[in-house]
């Protein structure tokens, strides 16, 4: 008898919906720090990401660098999620978001209000203030936040329909520093799209987030700084697929004591005392 293995499930390859838009993938990828623009494009393609993050920076006179980068992004046919990276106040973030909306022609904004230079930790107070102002102004806000549930509630009340808690501080690659808090957040907001953003260093970290039931992960450095970013992008896509499949399949419960997997009944010699 030939045993035919079932075809790999396509279910976990599909994405999720945020602000009424169905994303084709659960991976959102940054565009920064790649060895070259060409490798960045290849990595994005290999990752299957349907959304890439971008930024705004000061433009020198007669430079044209911004337009060249924009053309590069447009070639890839992916959605852009502009960020407010580096902003330290709600006011700076709001103005940056308004500039981003005009130039990238999108109301999506990855809202960052940074409160500490060493940890790049979100300033939750400024974040909530900016999220409210931008939501009222018609933006779809993707807030880069912590696992704090009170702040998360305030962000939702301010108009956010998605939350992006950090895994660990930006660029550290430490993975999910506080898995308990991230699990709590998932349980507390069962119907809200949740994306782990920042701190992901390895595909196993992304798989862990997906196994917890997170809807997506957003990462950059782990792929961009890999020796081979294109292969690493593929590795992340596979890990995210595996983690989501595992979540949907239903993971077993963790136990403290061993439980034999082989049936006990019929064990040879089991009734013979040692």
């Amino acid at each position, binding site marked *: 008898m030939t045993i035919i293995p079932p075809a790999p499930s396509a279910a976990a390859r599909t994405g999720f919906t945020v602000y009424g838009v169905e994303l084709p993938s659960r991976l959102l990828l*940054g*565009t*920064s*720090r*790649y060895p070259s623009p060409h490798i*960045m494009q290849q990595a994005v393609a290999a990752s299957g990401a349907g959304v890439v*993050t*971008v*930024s*705004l*920076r*000061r*433009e*020198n*006179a*007669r*430079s*044209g*660098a*911004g*337009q060249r*980068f*924009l053309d590069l*992004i447009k070639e890839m046919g992916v959605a852009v999620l*502009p*960020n407010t*990276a580096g902003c330290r106040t709600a*006011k*700076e973030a709001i*103005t*940056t978001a*308004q*500039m*981003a909306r*005009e*130039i*990238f022609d999108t109301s999506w904004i990855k809202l960052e209000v940074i409160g500490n230079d060493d940890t790049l930790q979100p300033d939750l107070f400024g974040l909530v203030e900016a999220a409210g102002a931008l939501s009222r102004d018609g933006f779809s806000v993707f807030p880069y936040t912590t696992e704090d549930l009170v702040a998360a509630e305030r962000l939702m009340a301010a108009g956010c329909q998605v939350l992006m808690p950090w895994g660990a501080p*930006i660029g550290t690659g430490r993975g999910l520093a506080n898995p308990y808090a991230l699990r709590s957040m998932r349980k507390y907001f069962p119907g809200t799209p949740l994306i782990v953003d*920042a701190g992901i260093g390895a595909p196993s970290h992304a798989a862990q987030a997906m196994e917890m039931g997170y809807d997506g992960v957003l990462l*950059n*450095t782990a792929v961009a700084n890999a020796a081979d970013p294109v292969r690493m992008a593929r590795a992340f896509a596979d890990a995210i697929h595996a983690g989501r499949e595992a979540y949907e399949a239903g993971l077993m419960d963790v136990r403290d004591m061993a439980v034999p997997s082989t049936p006990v009944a019929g064990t040879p010699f089991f009734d013979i005392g040692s």
Partner: protein
Amino acid sequence: MQESVTAALGITVNGEATSTTAATLAELVESLGHEARSVATAVNGAFVARAARGTHRLAPGDAVEIVAPRQGG
């Protein structure tokens, strides 16, 4: 006798002190060689939309930001 309308103005552009004869933000953007559609602008911390640059008159001491798309995480 006609008064000069092109007196140089002391402003900052992207944090650098400069002087310009541009009267409006649109003229400044053009004088710096930017495509109007390729940059976004703010003056004194407030966003100025592309369509409003032509009527936005510059004043001495204005802090102008001119930004463009870049890689981001």
